[in-house]
C-alpha cells in the first residue's frame, strides 16, 4: 500500500506551466544586473594580487623598465616610485622579458610580497606610464589618447582560479576573438582584448586596451608586434 502510494506520488508530479514572458524578462534583467558584482568578485577571489592600490606593490617589486628598441625589460631594486627607467637585465626570478619599440614605456614587477609566490606583472604602453599607478594601470588608462595602447600582463598564482589557461603554442598575439564587448573598469570608448594562456608551468592573463573602439587594425598590429617579442621562462630559470 505504502509502496503503491509512493509510486502514485512520483507519477503525480505537477506539470509545470510555462513562465509568463514578463516574469522571464524580469528574471533576466535581475540576473544580468548582478554581472558587475559577479565580475568584481571573480577578480577578487581568483586574482587576489590584482589590486588597485598604488605603488605599494611596486615597493616589494623587482622592477624592470626599458625604453628603446630591442631592450629586454629588466628587474632591479625596488623603485621608489613607479617611474619608468632602465635597470639592467632580466632577473630570472620573474622570468618575463619583452622588447619595446621607441616611444613605448614599461615596467615588470612582482605584485606579491616576497613571502608569497611570485606574480609577475607587466605594464607596457606607447604613452608615458605615470608613476604611482596601481596594478591595473588605472591612471595610464585614463591618460590614453585615441591611438594609444596599454598592455597589462598578470600572472595567476592561485591553486584554483576557475579559469582555463590554454597553452601558448605560438608567439603571443591577440586576435579578433579576444576582444570583449565590455569589461569592468574599462572605458566604454576603449576597445579591450583579453587572453588567458599558460607557458612554462605558469598562467597568465593578458589585457590589451586601446584608446578607441573599435581598435584600428593598424594599432592592433602595433600591439601585436610588441606582444610577439614577449618571452617567458620558468620561475627560477633565466
Amino acid at each position, binding site marked *: *500500500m*505504502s509502496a*503503491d*502510494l*509512493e509510486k*502514485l*506520488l*512520483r*507519477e*503525480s*508530479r*505537477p*506539470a*509545470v*506551466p510555462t*513562465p*509568463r514572458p514578463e*516574469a*522571464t524578462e*524580469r*528574471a*533576466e534583467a*535581475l*540576473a*544580468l*544586473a*548582478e*554581472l*558587475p*558584482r*559577479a*565580475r568584481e*568578485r*571573480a577578480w*577578487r*577571489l*581568483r586574482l587576489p594580487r590584482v589590486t588597485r592600490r598604488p605603488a605599494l606593490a611596486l615597493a616589494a617589486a623587482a622592477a624592470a623598465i626599458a625604453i628603446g628598441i630591442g631592450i629586454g625589460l629588466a628587474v632591479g631594486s625596488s623603485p621608489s616610485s613607479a617611474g619608468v627607467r632602465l635597470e639592467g637585465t632580466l632577473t630570472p626570478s620573474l622570468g618575463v622579458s619583452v622588447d619595446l619599440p621607441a616611444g613605448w614605456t614599461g615596467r615588470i614587477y612582482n605584485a606579491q610580497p616576497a613571502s608569497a609566490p611570485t606574480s609577475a606583472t607587466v605594464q607596457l604602453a606607447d604613452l608615458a606610464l605615470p608613476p604611482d599607478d596601481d596594478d591595473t594601470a588605472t591612471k595610464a588608462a585614463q591618460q590614453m589618447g585615441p591611438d594609444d595602447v596599454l598592455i597589462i600582463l598578470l600572472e595567476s598564482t592561485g591553486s*584554483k582560479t*576557475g*579559469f*582555463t589557461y590554454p597553452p601558448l603554442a605560438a608567439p603571443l598575439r591577440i586576435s579578433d576573438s579576444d576582444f*570583449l*564587448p*565590455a*569589461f*569592468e573598469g574599462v572605458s566604454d570608448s576603449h576597445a579591450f582584448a*583579453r587572453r588567458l594562456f599558460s607557458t612554462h608551468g605558469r598562467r597568465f592573463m593578458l589585457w590589451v586596451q586601446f584608446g578607441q573602439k573599435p581598435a584600428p587594425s593598424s594599432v592592433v598590429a602595433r600591439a601585436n608586434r610588441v606582444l610577439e617579442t614577449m618571452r617567458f621562462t620558468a620561475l627560477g630559470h633565466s
Partner: protein
Amino acid sequence: MLAELIEEARTGSQTAASKLFRVCWPIAWNAAFRITQQRALAEDAAQTAVQNVFRSLATFDETRPIEPWVRRIAVNASLNALRTESKTSPVDTSELDVSSPLTVAEGSPESGAVIAAVAALPLEQRLVVALHYWLDYSAAEIAELLELPVGTVASRVSRALKTLRTELEEEHVS
C-alpha cells in the same frame, strides 16, 4: 561549452550571460513551481534564485554540473518565499494552482486528486513530499536543505503518507 559560458559571463560578456540565463531559468522555474505550486510565488522565488546564481558565479566550480547547483538555490529561494508568506498570511490552499489546467499532473488519471491532496497537507509536510517525490531529493538532502534532523524529515514524510492514504482512500484513489 557551459564552462566557457560561465567564464565569459564572469568577465562581463552580456551575450554569454544571456545564454547562461537561458540554461538556468528553466531549472529555477521548475523547482520553484513544484515547491510553491503558486505562479506568483514561483516567479518571485525563481527570479530570486537566478539573481543569486549570477551573484555567486564567481564561486561556482564550473567543472561540476550546473543543474544541481541552480536547483538547490531555487529550492532555497522557494522555501524562503513560502516561509515569508506563511508568516504574513496563513497558508491558504485555495490559492494553490492545483485546480488550474496548468498544473495537470504528468502521470496517471488519479494524479489530479493526488496533487490536490498534497496541496491540502500542512506546509511542513507538503514541502518534504514535494522535495522527495517531485524533485527527487533524498531524506538526508532534505534534512540539510531544511536544517532539520533526518529523523524529523522521515517522520514528516511518514505523517504525510498517512494523511494522504486516508484522504485518497476516501476518494477511492489509492
